[in-house]
């Protein structure tokens, strides 16, 4: 050895493996406008599809006349439910066990519902013709209020389900009822409430919002009549699921369907499901024999493809007088819109909502969720959260503040007292979840110290006095939360989608020169998978991250997987990647032993090589072993260096975090200034700190939007009044606050690399933190709960009700 020989640490740094702030490799093309999105795909002779949509929230469709539309120059065909019936596709199954109209079949059940599909040789002609489809409607009574859906005389939403007393998840209580789902122990919870000193109860609504990816949903369907094969390019978060569902619906054999997700411009849950646009494009391509493209407009996206939330939670907590939690009860009405097209694991109609006990040691708990139909768009997807986890986290974190207020305790102290303690992990919650690892008190303590929490409370006290004296018209609010997520769906014992276990996969092939390709069942929509998966491989195999190509989204080449949503890529496919690496490494070790003429056990791993124990100068690097795998494998060993792993996680992972937000509220206008936002996240092992930070910034910006202004709002006639960016609040860089990010690291004990997933934490934790800050500003005046969104007029109205404008 001489001085020029790199040390282990120097060799490790060159790999850019786990822990490295590696620059995102996909940004080379994204920042130059060289991404390849669905709308960039232009195939020869391609036609364009456009929907005619319902102007009404609920109506009987008496007649559809397509003659004028069909006469527009360039129009090739116009599809209606009648056309689709000839191929048995007027309705399609949903992921939630319901059926959904592809095109209006006798009725329209929400505004902008798809009525007819025009196919033309240009987008312009298709749009012209879609306008000319003549539909005769007879308006019907509308209900957009989930709390009124099960009233005795509520309008019937689903005529097709008349008389059906059984739904996909058991008995239906009412003609607008979809499912009841419960978890926990009702008797134990009731007993806890009976002996409690202090209880609180509050109706906590999480309004309907929309994931709102920058790229809307789109597809290009191309059916090859000669081969009988369908190629479907689309904005799919879960391409394999789309292939399987497509095959089941269309009866085209699965091997003759090729689903390709190219670059996807954000998904956030909106691009998990199957939509009428996909079905119509496929049918149109089969009918016309040429490719057909469907591109959703912003209004279509906000008003028809999957929304999120719309959970209305009647929440109760029970406590001893000194602030020890005893019980939790929650009854929820979930608005699923006109069709139950919620994207959940099939057996979980309310998703993982029973994470609602949050970060707290609550001995007894029970929750019950009733899903209902209304005249609103279908959906209910996990918008940047695991299934219904955001709703649960919002509810419990709001309730914790309300209880602290009633007890006269500081909300941070009340949390600290009830957080699950480090020594309790693995912790089994009253709902039966086994939390894998956590160190909650440390996180909350670090957060409180970082912002000088006690000083903030002192300042708030002074400001409140000044407000009372009339010296200021501003109120200061401090939001503090501790959230726990449940992500990485999921273990096959808990989770499947239409019977397919929610495993995920990685297939790694190392080339002779020591570079390689990794293909996975997940699909990045901007998360940076091409960067991070390569970093896992770099650390596991000792090959530079730059030498690994990561490929996703082509069902012909990628191993089967359930896709990317619910922060599942790192917990599931990340684990599969590590496990596949370990299979490769085991083979490489045997090759090294053969080459070095020692026993396998005499070798030890050193960053990028196997070396002989006690004799570090005798080694074979992984690059050398890759070459050897193709020409001098031990006798009897098959050549090559590749492995595939299908990872069925033994448990979910439970990322957590402590967030603190400080706001100043102008009581005269309702305007809120976010003075400070501190976010501490613990996502277990950190693969790429820069990407984690970026994910947190993005998720917090979304949380800010949701808490401060977003709502998909319907008027009483069923008109959606917030279907464009004029009125749907998408914050810009100007409104978005500055973020302070921090972390602790508590690895998951059951995950091969200890990683837990992070993309969704900031949305889950951010929304209650903002909301608690706003609520906290008014709490000293006796206000317990102000509903989101906290936009100007609602905040002003809260102040008005408290008599602050007198």
């Amino acid at each position: 050895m001489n001085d020029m020989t790199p040390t282990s640490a120097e060799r490790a740094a060159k790999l850019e493996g786990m822990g490295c702030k590696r620059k995102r490799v996909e940004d080379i093309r994204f920042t130059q406008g060289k991404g390849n999105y669905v709308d960039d795909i232009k195939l020869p002779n391609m036609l364009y599809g456009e929907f005619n949509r319902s102007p009404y929230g609920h109506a009987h469709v008496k007649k559809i006349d397509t003659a004028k539309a069909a006469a527009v120059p360039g129009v090739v065909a116009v599809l209606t439910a009648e056309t689709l019936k000839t191929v048995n596709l007027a309705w399609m199954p949903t992921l939630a066990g319901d059926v959904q109209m592809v095109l209006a079949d006798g009725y329209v059940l929400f505004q902008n519902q798809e009525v007819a599909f025009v196919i033309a040789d240009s987008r312009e002609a298709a749009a012209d013709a879609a306008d000319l489809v003549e539909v005769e409607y007879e308006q019907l009574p509308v209900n957009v209020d989930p709390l009124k859906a099960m009233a005795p005389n509520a309008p019937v939403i689903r005529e097709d389900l008349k008389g059906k007393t059984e739904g996909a998840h058991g008995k239906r209580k009412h003609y607008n009822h979809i499912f009841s789902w419960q978890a926990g122990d009702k008797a134990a919870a009731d007993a806890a409430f009976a002996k409690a000193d202090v209880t609180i109860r509050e109706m906590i609504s999480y309004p309907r919002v929309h994931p709102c990816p920058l790229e809307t949903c789109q597809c290009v369907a191309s059916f090859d009549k000669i081969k009988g094969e369908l190629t479907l390019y689309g904005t799919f978060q879960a391409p394999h699921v789309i292939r399987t569902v497509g095959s089941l619906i269309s009866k085209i054999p699965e091997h003759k369907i090729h689903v390709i997700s190219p670059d996807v411009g954000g998904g956030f849950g909106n691009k998990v499901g199957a939509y009428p646009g996909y079905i119509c494009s496929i049918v149109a391509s089969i009918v016309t024999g040429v490719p057909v493209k469907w591109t959703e407009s912003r209004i279509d996206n906000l008003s028809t493809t999957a929304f999120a939330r719309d959970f209305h939670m009647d929440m109760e907590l029970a406590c001893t007088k000194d602030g020890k939690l005893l019980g939790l009860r929650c009854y929820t009405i979930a608005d699923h819109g006109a069709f139950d097209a919620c994207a959940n694991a099939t057996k979980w109609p309310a998703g993982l909502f029973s994470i609602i006990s949050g970060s707290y040691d609550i001995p007894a708990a029970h929750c019950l969720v009733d899903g209902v139909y209304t005249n609103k768009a279908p959906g209910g997807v996990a918008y940047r959260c695991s299934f219904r986890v955001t709703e649960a986290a919002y509810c419990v974190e709001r309730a914790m503040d309300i209880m602290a207020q009633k007890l006269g305790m500081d909300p941070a102290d009340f949390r600290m007292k009830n957080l699950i303690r480090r020594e309790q992990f693995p912790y089994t919650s009253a709902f039966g979840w086994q939390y894998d690892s956590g160190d909650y008190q440390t996180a909350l303590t670090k957060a409180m110290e970082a912002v000088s929490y006690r000083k903030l409370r002192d300042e708030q006290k002074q400001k409140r006095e000044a407000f009372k004296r009339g010296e200021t018209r501003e109120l200061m609010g401090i939001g503090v939360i501790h959230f726990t997520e449940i992500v990485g769906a999921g273990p096959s014992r808990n989770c499947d989608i239409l019977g397919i276990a929610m495993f995920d996969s990685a297939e790694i092939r190392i080339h002779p020169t020591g570079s390689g390709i990794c293909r996975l069942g997940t699909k990045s929509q901007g998360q940076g998978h091409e960067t991070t998966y390569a970093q896992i491989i770099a650390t596991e195999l000792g090959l530079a991250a730059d030498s690994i190509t990561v490929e996703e989204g082509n069902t012909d080449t990628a191993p089967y997987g359930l896709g990317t949503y619910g922060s599942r890529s790192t917990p599931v496919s990340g684990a599969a990647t590590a496990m596949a690496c370990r299979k490769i490494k085991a083979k490489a070790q045997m090759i090294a032993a053969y080459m070095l003429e020692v026993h396998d056990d005499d070798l030890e791993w050193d960053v990028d090589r196997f070396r002989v124990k006690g004799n570090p100068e005798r080694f074979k690097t992984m690059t050398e072993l890759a070459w050897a795998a193709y020409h001098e494998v031990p006798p009897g060993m098959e050549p090559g260096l590749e492995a595939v792993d299908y990872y069925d996680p033994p448990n979910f992972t439970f990322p957590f975090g402590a967030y603190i937000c400080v706001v100043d509220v102008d009581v005269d206008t309702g305007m809120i200034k976010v003075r400070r936002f501190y976010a501490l996240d613990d996502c277990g092992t950190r693969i790429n700190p820069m990407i984690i930070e970026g994910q947190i910034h993005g998720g917090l910006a979304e949380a800010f939007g949701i808490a401060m202004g977003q709502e998909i709002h319907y008027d009483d006639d069923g008109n959606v009044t917030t279907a464009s960016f004029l009125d749907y609040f998408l914050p810009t860089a100007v409104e978005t606050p500055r973020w302070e990010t921090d972390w602790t690291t508590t690895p998951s004990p059951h995950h091969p690399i200890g990683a837990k997933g992070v993309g969704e934490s900031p949305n889950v934790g951010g929304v209650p933190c903002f909301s608690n800050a706003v609520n906290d500003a008014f709490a000293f005046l006796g206000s317990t709960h102000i509903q989101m969104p906290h936009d100007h007029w609602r905040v002003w109205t809260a102040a008005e009700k408290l008599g602050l404008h007198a």
Partner: protein
Amino acid sequence: MIPGSFNYHRPKSVQEAVGLLAKLGDDGRLLAGGHSLIPTMKLRLATPANLIDLGGIADLKGIRADGNDIVVGAMTTQHDLIASDLLASKIPILRETSAQIADPQVRYVGTLGGNVANGDPANDMPALMMCLNATFHASGKSGERKIAARGFYQGLYATALQSGEVLTAIRIPVPAAGHGYAYEKLKRKIGDFATAAAAVVLTMKGGKVNSCAIALTNVADKPLLAEEATKILIGSALDAATVKRAVAAAEAITSPAEDPRGPAQYRTKMAGVMLTRALARAKSLAKG
């Protein structure tokens, strides 16, 4: 979000534009910056068969002093208004208001003429032009005429501009030296229209209001000149009680619609809050 088909015309002179308008009649729509018209066309709420783009008429651009007035060409962009040293020194409220319209990309293209001629009460410039007592110049087949901004707005998208007329310039009297001014606008985010906004230009003499003009944005189907409020304020020292009376008088003339920015009552109250703040700031800037 695909507009219907249309013919595109790009005249080189006002005369040519007027001729086209006369020829095309109701089938022709003038295109200035396009930030109102084009979205409306994309939603197919407007389906003009002919668009007459005024962007090619050099005479419609520019800012110049003319005696005690400043004349702004109708196709002058909001960005130009912000960049103008002449306006910054003579009518700073114009610059302040322009900077609160939408975002830089919009302001590079959006024009003063388009903003005032469209008759949209949510636009910021109509109220400001009423506040400043501007005059609009219009050219039609029968020649040129002048219309006072204070008499121009008749209702939602309804103005005194007659069909066949092109609004060519805006003439604004320069407010007295030492005047105070403010445009206070409450909006939900960058790019949004006002929930409510108030424009104030005033002069002070011996600590008392000597002259004053107040106009309100987006709290009725047209911009509002708050004349009663002005009367209450003149001669006062802008003491709290008088301001409160004036604000109440201004609130009384509003009739906002409920929209996602808030219910009518809230928007009326916000007009009052914006006016209160605009008066305070204008007073602090006024000399005398």
